[in-house]
């Protein structure tokens, strides 16, 4: 690619901490790269690995999972469930040939707008360094491409 690669990142936020942190970053006009697109969940405990796989297979280059700091979960302890799933998911991704670093878990309290913005910046750079993922299933081309190629070889 001629100009620098701009990764597309899906971010999952907790309604009570990280989403509010994002709001705070906004209110404070703290700038961060536009590569991250946030989705609001009620809690990081709602995070289903399916969502992450959906994002990655759908064209995202990275996924950011955010939740309340350990011990500060709005729902007492659900962020730990997110942590457990995250740790297992990374292992599976690695086996699928996807750098586990493309999925990152970050704790951010409602007060940590600045920190969240910084973490987003860091993660965008990290994913940029990893390069595009562009999982083939996300390419509208994929089936057509296959078919076309098959015809070619058949001909």
């Amino acid at each position: 690619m001629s100009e620098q690669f701009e990764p597309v990142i899906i971010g999952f936020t907790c309604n009570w901490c990280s989403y509010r942190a994002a709001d705070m970053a906004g209110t404070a006009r703290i700038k961060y790269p536009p590569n991250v697109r946030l989705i609001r969940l009620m809690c990081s405990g709602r995070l289903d690995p399916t969502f992450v796989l959906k994002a990655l297979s759908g064209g995202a280059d990275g996924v950011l999972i955010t939740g309340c700091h350990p011990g500060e979960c709005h729902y007492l302890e659900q962020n730990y469930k997110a942590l457990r799933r995250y740790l297992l998911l990374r292992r599976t991704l690695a086996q699928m040939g996807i750098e586990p670093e493309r999925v990152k878990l970050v704790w951010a309290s409602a007060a940590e707008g600045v920190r969240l913005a910084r973490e987003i910046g860091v993660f965008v750079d990290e994913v940029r360094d990893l390069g595009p993922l562009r999982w083939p299933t996300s390419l509208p081309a994929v089936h057509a491409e296959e078919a076309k190629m098959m015809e070619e070889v058949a001909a």
Partner: protein
Amino acid sequence: MSANGNKNEEGKERIGVYVCHCGSNIAGVVDVKDVAVWAKEEMGDEGVVVARDYKFMCSSLGQELIENDIKELGLTRVVVAACSPHLHEQTFRTAAERAGLNPYLSELVSIREQVSWVHTDKVKATEKAKAVVAGGIERVIQNEPLEPLRVPIHPATLVVGGGIAGIQAALEIADAGHKVYLVEREPSIGGHMAQFDKTFPTLDCAACILTPRMVSVGEHPNIELLTWSEVERVEGYVGNFSVTVRKRPRYVDTELCTGCGICWEKCPKKVIDEVFEVGIGYRTAVYTPFPQAVPKYPVIDTETCIYFQNGKCKACEKLCPTGAIKFDQEEEIVLLEVGNIIIATGFDLFDARRIPEYGYGRLANVFTSAEFERMCNAAGPTDGEVVMRDGVSKPASVGIVHCVGSRDRNYNNYCSVICCMSSLKFAHLVKERTGAEVYNFYIDMRTAYKDYDEFYQRVMGEGVLFVRGRVAEITDATRSPGEEGKLVIQVEDTLAGRQRRIPVDMAILAVGLEPRADAKEVAKKFGISCSAAGWITEKHPKLDPVATMTEGIFIAGAVQGPKDIPTSVAQGAAAAARVLSRISRGEIYLEPIRATVNAEMCSGCRICNNLCPFNAIIFHEDLMVSEINHALCQGCGTCVAACPAGAISGTGFSNEQVLSQIEGLLEFSFAEEPVLMEMTPA
């Protein structure tokens, strides 16, 4: 076309998209017109029938715009691209509802906090805004019409903790004519305030203002007092909690006891009172913590009672004129049904032994603020005399050390709020009662709030000396004849810019406030959260300080953080007001964001059973399926995400909604040429 749920020809939803300029807040960075045009043209296939941009969507005109479209174009879904849902979600839901559309069929996506305010590149920002809107559109298609949950409220209330905050809350509710159960761990209510002599800044006598309140609690027809008792278990949910209380045996029949006091006058067993007299006074084995105790009935401390220890004595039983002593009394388990709970369990004091260099516990004449409070109290161990540990000699010089265990990274980082003022109070009392020379060693003086700083001025006027600096050490290791037999306070005077050694007869450590030792267990018991330190977390630090994340459970006083008396009282009243409003409404509405088990699909694997901190998930052994109690469910969705059979669905944040939103957000993923895979056959 009717206003509700009419889909268009191909059975697609009819969606309206509304892009807000927010003056220049959004329009300044995002090309809102372009976004609106794009939504109409590109998202038509998804069902977008109208897309508009407007200066201020939240304005009444903006809302009308939406309402009219819903009515005239028969919209079945609405997406507003503006500010954060936390700001205006309700606004647009209400607008939708006014137009006859189920409020939950509208979706507010943030292109201000998450786009225009945080990005500068207009092209990229506009592109992201489109992605965000696309996400909203895909999501809203999956939204379902929802109804808020209605929960009836049981009119009785449980107040936990009989300190000033709990007392205030109990009285407010009881006076309003509703039943209150007040549970207190100690034999009497009154809390820390009952230990004090004077209260800052007015110096009115604590007992004089507290006792009447305690008495009216004791006599109130609507208040059932359970002292010497602890909450064992809490079940149920907002509106109808069932609470199990363990009532420890007093070994005194409260029906017969008149509180005459003969038993404790005659009890031969004197022991150090570690609780009310904080270790510098004595009580008997059968005792009430203090004369004005409410209830007036004593308790027998089995640990020290001679009879309980070696089967002899029974002096109290023999001498009790009403035969109220009952050695065979057993503990009671009381079950309470309440609609709301107020937790006012207060604080513990920092243990000064943890800072050995201050010598508390080693050096006789180092006292804690609590000890000094008792010493000053006319009913205390020294009858209000300020004396040294020998119990007779008066100090000629006293050093008061601030911030002991507070604002100290080795112990607690926070400020304990009350210590500056109580230290000033101590300084005044010492002056008043001994005329001794008084030093205050402080980091910063914190005398906010009404008449506090005036009090500071007054105490300075009384000739109390102030040294700005953290005390390094309190020692009896003297270096000069002048220091002989005294305690030397080693401190860096940061105003004079030098080390000082100040000999005093007596040192008072203004110890900080800490969460109750068992705060975390209590939080767990009630299903609420607390900070790492152990202070209970309020629902919102500014806008909802007396509510907790758990519906129907409120907090008041120092259980939420260090507080002085006025603030605790205010919170007690505030919590009571919140409870009363619920009781008078008779029922409350809860956000319908809840999880539901599809019994047909549930295999009863019990994976989810352990995942709910609110115990909302019940397992039916007979049917081998799990079920979720909607009133208990807080809607976090953890079980939804965890169910291996996909048998649990979560309203408001269903899989379909989230997955579709992901698709929407990714519609703009292909900025540059996709990397094609090589598929050449072998």
